[in-house]
């Protein structure tokens, strides 16, 4: 077969009038050859997902294609009828979504949902359909496919659900598979497996894949060709090796430079005195069960013993469910651990009464993950920052003046204190969160995934700010993250958590260069594009 499977020519997509720009996509031209993986990379708002929706003609109601062609096998999909599009979706072009939990119907079994593809598009009989469905589940290597056939989505893990989604997408041997951030919601080890699966299936079936991602690590892992998008324009495209190692456009260069290397920087000398000590901290959750019968007990944190030297950064890494966030919440006493000792500079935090803890709160502060949920939408930014000191008795005028200073400190315009949180971007909101935590002049800052909701370029800025503040204010940091690249970049010490336990800890250079525990090794091996890093110094 010759010629591209899909050819997008000068595609334009218009946004509603009150949007921040007139077009979601402008003059986008892309070709996908058979048997090729094209990665479309960009930050949020770049229009990469809109491209996928435009190809499938699944655009939001008030958004419309106003220019260009989408040629699929010679047919222009922009002009195609709705009935024709329905026949093509699933059969000719299939799609895999980011969130496998919401993309599957929770009330129907996985087997039933895959079989539906055949029922809609073919005239196969029931027996043939169930045989094919089982075959597909075997093909995507779900453990115990017969059981998975009858399972409901919530009975499968995230990775298994994504495998089921891929099985569904590939059911009718589509010519083109569109994958919209298919691994973003998954843990690194699962992500590595899914990426390998997509690549393997693609090679065997010769499907063309349009792979949308924000992660250059994933690109390095999987792409044959790369298209970089910014503000609805394709700024650069070419073979993966060229774009990754010799980027032409400034924006591509900036994006790649923002990808931190997994190798740790030279170790800094670490102080001998520990500011924060954790000894045998335990937290279990009990759910369900009446009067203790059939109760499910989850050991979220099991006997964690760690030290944070003064002025150092302790990274806690692990996958979802490893207990790292629970541990962070134990330190600030949002969660009450059952057993163990957490001492801050000699005072046992867990022994304090509620009133005393409120006083001690100013010494340990927390930065949260979600820049949208962690700020009260009905308070002005300045008030959010001034709140802490005001609770502890600082007069309002004084606290507001200090808030302006803090705004300047975290790189925000001090005049912006009377705006509301929704008027700020994600990165700016995270800076507000940081200013709020710093307002109480804490000794220890606990940061729970502070950059994981941010775009890479913004991520780099916030990390640089954190490091700079740590040095300037003499802070000690507990840094929770799932991203080993980020951990390697900012931490002095690192602790790897799995199922509530610390399996390995030590100086970050040692742990990452010569991991002793099998799980640490597996984590490091799973980092997508682990040998790839922005060569250009930032």
């Amino acid at each position: 077969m010759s010629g591209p499977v899909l050819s997008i020519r000068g595609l334009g997509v218009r946004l509603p009038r009150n949007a921040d720009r007139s077009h979601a996509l402008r003059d986008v031209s892309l070709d996908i050859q058979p048997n090729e993986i094209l990665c479309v990379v960009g930050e949020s708002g770049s229009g990469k997902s809109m491209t996928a929706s435009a190809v499938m003609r699944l655009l939001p109601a008030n958004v419309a294609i106003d220019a260009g062609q989408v040629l699929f096998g010679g047919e222009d999909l922009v002009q195609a009828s709705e009935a024709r599009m329905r026949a093509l979706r699933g059969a000719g072009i299939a799609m895999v979504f980011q969130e496998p939990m919401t993309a599957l119907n929770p009330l129907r079994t996985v087997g039933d949902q895959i079989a539906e593809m055949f029922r809609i598009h073919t005239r196969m009989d029931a027996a043939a359909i169930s045989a094919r469905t089982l075959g597909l589940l075997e093909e995507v290597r779900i453990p115990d496919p017969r059981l998975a056939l009858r399972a409901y989505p919530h009975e499968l893990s995230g990775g298994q659900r994504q495998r089921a989604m891929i099985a569904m997408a590939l059911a009718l041997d589509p010519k083109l598979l569109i994958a919209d951030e298919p691994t973003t919601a998954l843990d690194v080890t699962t992500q590595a497996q899914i990426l390998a699966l997509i690549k393997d299936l693609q090679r065997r079936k010769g499907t063309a894949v349009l792979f949308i991602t924000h992660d250059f690590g994933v690109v390095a892992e999987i792409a044959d060709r790369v298209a970089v998008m910014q503000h609805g324009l394709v700024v650069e495209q070419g073979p993966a090796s060229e774009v990754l190692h010799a980027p032409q456009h400034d924006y591509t260069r900036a994006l790649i430079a923002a990808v931190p290397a997994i190798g740790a920087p030279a170790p800094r000398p670490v102080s001998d005195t520990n500011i924060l000590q954790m000894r045998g901290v335990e937290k279990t959750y009990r759910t369900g069960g009446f009067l203790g019968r059939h109760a499910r007990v989850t050991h979220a944190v099991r006997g964690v013993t760690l030290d944070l030297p003064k002025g150092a950064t302790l990274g806690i890494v692990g996958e979802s469910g490893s207990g790292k966030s629970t541990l962070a919440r134990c330190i600030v006493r949002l969660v009450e651990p059952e057993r163990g000792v957490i001492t801050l500079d000699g005072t046992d935090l867990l022994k304090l009464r509620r009133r005393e803890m409120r006083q001690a709160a100013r010494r340990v502060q927390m930065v949260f993950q979600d820049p949208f949920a962690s700020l009260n939408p009905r308070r002005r930014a300045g008030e959010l920052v001034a709140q802490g000191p005001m609770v502890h008795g600082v007069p309002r005028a004084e606290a507001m003046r200090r808030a302006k200073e803090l705004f300047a400190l975290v790189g925000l315009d001090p005049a912006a204190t009377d705006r509301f949180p929704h008027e700020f971007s994600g990165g700016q909101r995270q800076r507000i969160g940081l200013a709020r935590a710093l307002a109480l002049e804490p000794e220890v800052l606990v940061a729970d995934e502070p950059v994981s909701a941010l775009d890479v370029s913004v991520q780099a800025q916030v990390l640089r700010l954190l490091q700079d503040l740590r040095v300037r204010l003499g802070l000690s940091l507990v840094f929770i993250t799932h991203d080993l690249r980020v951990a390697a970049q900012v931490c002095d010490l690192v602790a790897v958590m799995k199922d509530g336990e610390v399996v390995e800890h030590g100086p970050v250079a040692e742990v990452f260069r010569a991991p002793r525990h099998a799980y640490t090794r597996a984590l490091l091996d799973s980092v997508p594009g682990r040998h790839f890093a922005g060569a250009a110094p930032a």
Partner: protein
Amino acid sequence: MKRFLLAYLKSPPAVIGLVLLLVIVAMALSADWFFPRDPLSLAGRPLQWPGANPRFPLGTDNSGRDIAAQIFHGARVSLLIGVVATSIAVGLGIVVGALAGYHGGWVDDALMRVTEAFQTLPNFLLLLVLVAVFGSDITTVTVAVGAVSWPAPARLTRAEFLSLRNREFVQACRTLGMGDARIIFREVLPNALPPVIVYASVVMAVAILLESALAFLRLSDPNVASWGNLIGLGRDVLRVQWYVSAIPGVAILVTVLAVSLVGQGLNDALNPRLRGR
């Protein structure tokens, strides 16, 4: 605020509701000016049809009292009962719901069992009991209407708090060392309020209806000129002089409709997901 007003004024039913409500408020305010005499005093020959006598545009009831005067003065009573009873119900509901939703655990269990105890009784039955026990002057009736209407706002507030209390911004407030009362009422409540405000319009409509129903059974305060009292009087002459009951009935209908339309309009304007549709 400006955006909110614009969003509200975009919907024609909401504007109609607001205009109707303003007319009723104007009637209540101007009652003393148009009808300076006591509306319950005898004014003329009983049971004159509307329009029959230019002195009584809406006619007279079976005791010879001016119906128009009673309608204007009755607007005061209905609105007063509506507003005061709603404030009591929503205020109580918010406090109970907020405490239950924020604290959870045994506090929630205890407060919700009390709420359910109120909910299992039909509120009109409970209202009858309260009025039978405590008497039927206007203050008691208003408080009783409020006291039977709080469970629904309490449940609504609780549901909002349950979803808000685990948000990171609430946790952030706790790490700052804020006390519970301050978090509940200054931080979480403003976020939980919009659906409760909207629901308040339903409570108000129901409160007006409850008072009218009481009056219809002649269990409301007979010494005030309320619409319900007038309907109750008209009951005796319903088959011939039906206008005596019908006119206050229309007044109640229009008021409840206006309050509901305003509530709908508030809902649409406060709900950001519906904006721009």
